[in-house]
């Protein structure tokens, strides 16, 4: 799993992961069913964030007896991956400069982990680490020279990166975010802030019982700009020169219009 990087790898990885889950399934099989209240979030000019509802059921095999220990669910929402630079300021000649920096490559732009209980009550540390449960266990890759390595958990730059993302409401953990309405029916709400970047968001839902993953399912939603905003962004990025010329013309027209409207002589 740790070798799974890049978009081209993702299909193979997902396949490998699901095979892995299925092969590990015990004879008593539960199935996890889930859905999202919406699969497309449209950013319009008055977009200030959105709340999505994730809901579903745990389907028991009727032939087997229900578990006495109960279920736990961990849902991980991962935004589109992007590369970022984290920089640290240092004082030089009495002025604060950006000095050292670290490049994080292909890290989630958004990461929200929702669960029924605090992670340590759901499974042991080793399982949580292997299943990448929680922000601390999420793999963040760092580029050092031409090598791509995994950032160690207590790396200062990794900590600062996660903290800043958390302050912008882009990284978060809600350990009571998933609730069971009945012993098998669950519900969680995913809050997407206005600052969340556009792209595809994967929702990975894992069912835990007795400290192990017993079922897993996926869902996804897309955040996209529509109409005018989408037009502006794509024009600015894809046709920078034409966009600049049009913007400059708009400025000239506004100025000309003002000189006519406010003409005094």
């Amino acid at each position, binding site marked *: 799993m740790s070798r799974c990087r890049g*978009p081209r790898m993702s299909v193979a990885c997902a396949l490998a992961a699901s095979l892995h889950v299925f092969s590990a399934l015990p004879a008593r099989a539960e199935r996890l069913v889930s859905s999202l209240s919406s699969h497309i979030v449209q*950013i*319009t*000019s*008055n*977009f*200030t964030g959105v709340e999505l509802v994730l809901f579903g059921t745990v389907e028991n095999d009727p032939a087997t007896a229900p578990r006495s220990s109960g279920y736990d669910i961990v849902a991980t929402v991962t935004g*589109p*991956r*992007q*590369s*970022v*630079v*984290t*920089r*640290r*300021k*240092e*004082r030089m000649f*009495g*002025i*604060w*400069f*950006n000095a050292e*920096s670290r490049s994080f490559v292909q890290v989630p732009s958004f990461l929200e982990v929702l669960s029924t209980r605090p992670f340590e009550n759901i499974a042991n540390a080793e399982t949580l680490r292997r299943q990448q449960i929680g922000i601390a266990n999420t793999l963040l890759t760092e580029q050092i020279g031409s090598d791509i390595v995994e950032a160690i958990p207590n790396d200062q*730059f990794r900590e*600062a*990166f996660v*903290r*800043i*993302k958390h302050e912008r409401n882009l990284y978060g953990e809600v350990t009571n975010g998933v609730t069971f309405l009945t012993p098998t029916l669950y519900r969680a709400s995913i809050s997407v802030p*206005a*600052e969340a*970047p556009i*792209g595809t968001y994967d929702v990975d839902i894992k069912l835990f019982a007795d400290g192990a993953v017993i079922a897993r399912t996926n869902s996804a939603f897309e955040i996209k*700009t529509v109409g005018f*905003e989408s037009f*502006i*962004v794509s024009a*600015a*990025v894809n046709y*920078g*020169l034409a*966009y*600049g*010329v*049009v*913007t*400059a013309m*708009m*400025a*000239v027209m*506004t*100025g*000309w*219009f*003002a*000189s006519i409207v*406010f003409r005094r*002589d």
Partner: protein
Amino acid sequence: MEIYLPIADLPVNIFLVLAMGLAVGFVSGLFGIGGGFLMTPLLIFIGISPAVAVATVSTHIAASSFSGAVTYWRRRAIDLTLALMLLAGGIVGTVSGVWLFTALRGLGQLDITIGLSYVLLLGSVGAMMVIEGLRAMLRARQGKPVELRRPGSHTWIHGLPLKFRFKQSKIYVSAIPVCVIGLIMGFIGAIMGIGGGFLLVPMLIYFLRVPTNVVIGTSMVLTLVTMASATILHAATNHQVDAVLALILMVGGVTGAQFGARAGQKMRSERLRLLLGVLVLAVGSRFAFDLVVAPADLYTVRATGDAP
């Protein structure tokens, strides 16, 4: 009412931005300047990244200087020959300014460069203007006549070769200082997001002895072309020009400028100059404060590119 800015990628209150445009427009009309040195810092203070602020303000200044230039053109108060020669240097300055802007952004040193440039330029120019303004007021209070001798009547500048006659301004100077002034203005304009009217007008008066009746109109032509080309270049290389933000600022700016111009006619010119000096100095000090005081967070995070 919140509006989502597509390039700045954050929601802002449309009335706040409109009010900022009006206020800066008022100041720019009052002093006959573009007001970029106020607008760029204001945008940075409300949370817009310095790169977007600088690139977008160029658009705003292009609009306000065009509106001004049309008015001066009607009054035949523009020296076109001089403006064209300033532009020859100005375009080169703008292209190199945008190039340096892009390079510094890649290195992560853009914000500090913008901050330092503001401190150095606005600090020194503001201090000079305040001292000059206080002297003028003191002279007026003592009842002494205003000095008629224009400073720098014949300096080394007039000894330079490649002399050229500018008919409308009635001056006979070398093309070299004209191009150099244009180059400097284009360069700092592209990096700092200012038209530089508050700097260009004194330079033209003191160094080239351009008469006051054509100086503002001519400087506006230079500002218009350098800022319009800065807009195009910033859009083509950095993709940081936010057209929605620019439009709101422009509408506020050109409206505010009309009221500012009317208020300015009622004020004494030396008092106006002193006031402008204080304003310039205040903005410079604000940047100095930010550079020296320990930042709340030593770390910053910036996206370098989306998934390939």
